[in-house]
């Protein structure tokens, strides 16, 4: 099966501030997202994971590098047509459904706002149909269109957030921590809706999260990001079986297990970036096994290879 590259992020850097005050939130990040997969971007707050997602939809500007969608450049200065090209194909779901919906607009408007922007309908009737369909797709009733966001619970609000991306019929959806603000019982509902939509609408997801247990469940491949740099990338199962980078290990060890005996035996591993000796021997992006990449210097590569042989 040949994999079609849908989104290509090449040497992306994002800076905030200028001159001496400049802060590099994303530092030379590259990855591809294949059509039809769910790609997970995992890291702590401040790691730059959200910024990458936002750079793709152009909320944050890329300082260096480029982003390509279906081979077309979508970063930097874009013409009107190009701009519309991205808007129609890439959509975003935000983290906090309590903050991301316009409280003064009815659901009908919230869901169709994107359509208004791209004039994505021919008649009022068509728009109404599209909204209705999007609401049904996320398991909400079409009647809800005439209500205001405050009438809904957190889980329902997040579904409205999903509906407004669906109405655009996108190919790529960037889901920025779509379930971290939700109760555990509602998380399951939203995760299930996301996986169902992926199947029925042949969507591709970039799933941004800090919780590896959720990411393992939903993603095909995972990139682990620390302080603006991707430190490890592999298929999800592989990453869980054979974590190489110490930071990945620390993230894995932090997953809370619903098992008191296992929890009592578990050792929490805290990552200390000072363990690397990168002054003399700077790290490189190495493919340690096919499709399993890690950021490491020569000495570490040797170490990881030994560990890999022993573990496998």
């Amino acid at each position, binding site marked *: 099966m040949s994999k079609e590259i849908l989104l290509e992020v090449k040497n992306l850097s994002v800076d905030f501030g200028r001159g001496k005050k400049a802060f590099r939130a994303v530092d030379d990040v590259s990855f591809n997202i294949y059509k039809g997969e769910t790609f997970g971007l995992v890291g702590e707050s*401040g790691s730059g994971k959200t910024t990458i997602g936002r750079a793709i939809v152009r909320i944050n500007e890329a300082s260096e590098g480029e982003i390509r969608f279906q081979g077309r450049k979508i970063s930097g200065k874009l013409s009107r047509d190009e701009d519309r090209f991205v808007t129609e194909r890439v959509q975003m779901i935000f983290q906090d459904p309590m903050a991301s919906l316009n409280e003064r607009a009815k659901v009908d408007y919230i869901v169709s706002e994107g359509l208004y922007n791209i004039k994505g309908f021919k008649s009022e009737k068509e728009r109404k149909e599209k909204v209705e369909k999007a609401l049904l797709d996320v398991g909400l009733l079409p009647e809800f269109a005439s209500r205001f966001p405050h009438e809904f619970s957190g889980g329902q609000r997040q579904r409205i957030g999903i509906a407004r991306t669906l109405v655009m019929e996108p190919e790529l959806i960037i889901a920025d921590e779509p379930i971290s603000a939700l*109760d555990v019982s509602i998380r399951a509902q939203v995760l299930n809706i996301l996986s169902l939509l992926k199947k029925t609408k042949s969507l591709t997801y970039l799933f941004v999260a800090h919780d590896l247990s959720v990411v393992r469940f939903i993603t095909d491949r995972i990139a682990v990001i620390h302080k603006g740099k991707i430190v490890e990338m592999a298929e999800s199962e592989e990453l869980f079986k054979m974590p190489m980078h110490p930071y990945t290990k620390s993230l894995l060890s932090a997953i*809370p297990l619903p098992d008191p005996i*296992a929890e009592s035996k578990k050792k929490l591993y805290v990552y200390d970036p000072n363990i690397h000796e990168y002054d003399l021997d700077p790290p490189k992006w190495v493919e340690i096994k096919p499709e399993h990449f890690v950021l490491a210097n020569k000495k570490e590569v040797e170490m990881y290879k030994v560990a890999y042989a022993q573990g496998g």
Partner: protein
Amino acid sequence: MSNLYQEKNIVLSVKDLIIKFELRGRVLTAIRNISLDLYKGESLAIVGESGSGKSVFTKSFMGLLDSNGWIDQGSILYDNKDLSKFKREKEWLDLRGSRIAMVFQDPMTSLNPLKTIGRQVQEAIELHQGLKGKEAKSKAIEYLIDVGIAMPEKRFKQYPHEFSGGMRQRVVIAIAVACNPEILICDEPTTALDVTIQAQILNLLKAMQKKYKLTIVYITHDLGVVANVADRIAVMYAGDIIEIGTAHEIFYNPQHPYTWALLSSLPQLGVKGEDLFAIQGTPPNLFKDIEGDAFAPRNPHALKIDFLMRPPYFKLSETHKAKTWLLHPKAPEVKKAEVLLNLKENMEEYRHV
């Protein structure tokens, strides 16, 4: 009375508690007849969805109910006093902080942004331990070291905005512990934090519990988080504790269908490519009187009687009881979900870490 308490080492005892709120002229029953004993030195986790009443329940121990809420019935016995009879704020002031302290969910909003963190810790010490000036300051620094803040002298003079979320939560914990309380209530102490920080904060709370001999009540919506820290777990639904037992009993031998549902919806237990178990429907409307088992409308295993009569507690062991008719001798046998039966095996995937 007091003798009886000491024998069982009960620090706080709630009996038949009913709490109501008035909202826009209508009355809502938030806590529907709960009885619970809290044992000295234990850590009890109260788990439930938002709206289950877990926060309201614990807030009533500290007199922190919103002004439209009241204790309608029942008692909260602590230190030979019935807290439910407290009328004036002054009575609560002797208790809050110094006897029962609280750590709130969001460390971003629970610290004063205009005062240095050192000042805020010192304040608690001056107020509750009677120390002053230099003594109080050096004590404050001790507490900062205790909660794992590096370079405490320097950090002492800094403001909350100079701290990360995890560090702020450490400061909040330092303040709570500096009050020298007997009971510490942690209301979703890690929900606003990253997973890695969450694990560290939970470990810190465990260490503090040991060092200061605290009795801790955790409140959380995430059953997955408490396996590490809780001795006992109480599962709340619609203002009632529907199952309570030791952590082992709740995780390895859960009895109430709602506890099953909460456990099976954890993504840690999810099988890739399959749907995660999701609880259907919504929690009941607490403005109305609830008949039968409150969870029955959402329960795929519900029996006829679940809609008619509220189940009593069925005792499974000295420590484990659950309110479900499924435990009645005449009830049909219901099979638990596969994931729960094989919980330990399912965890194998994480075992190598």
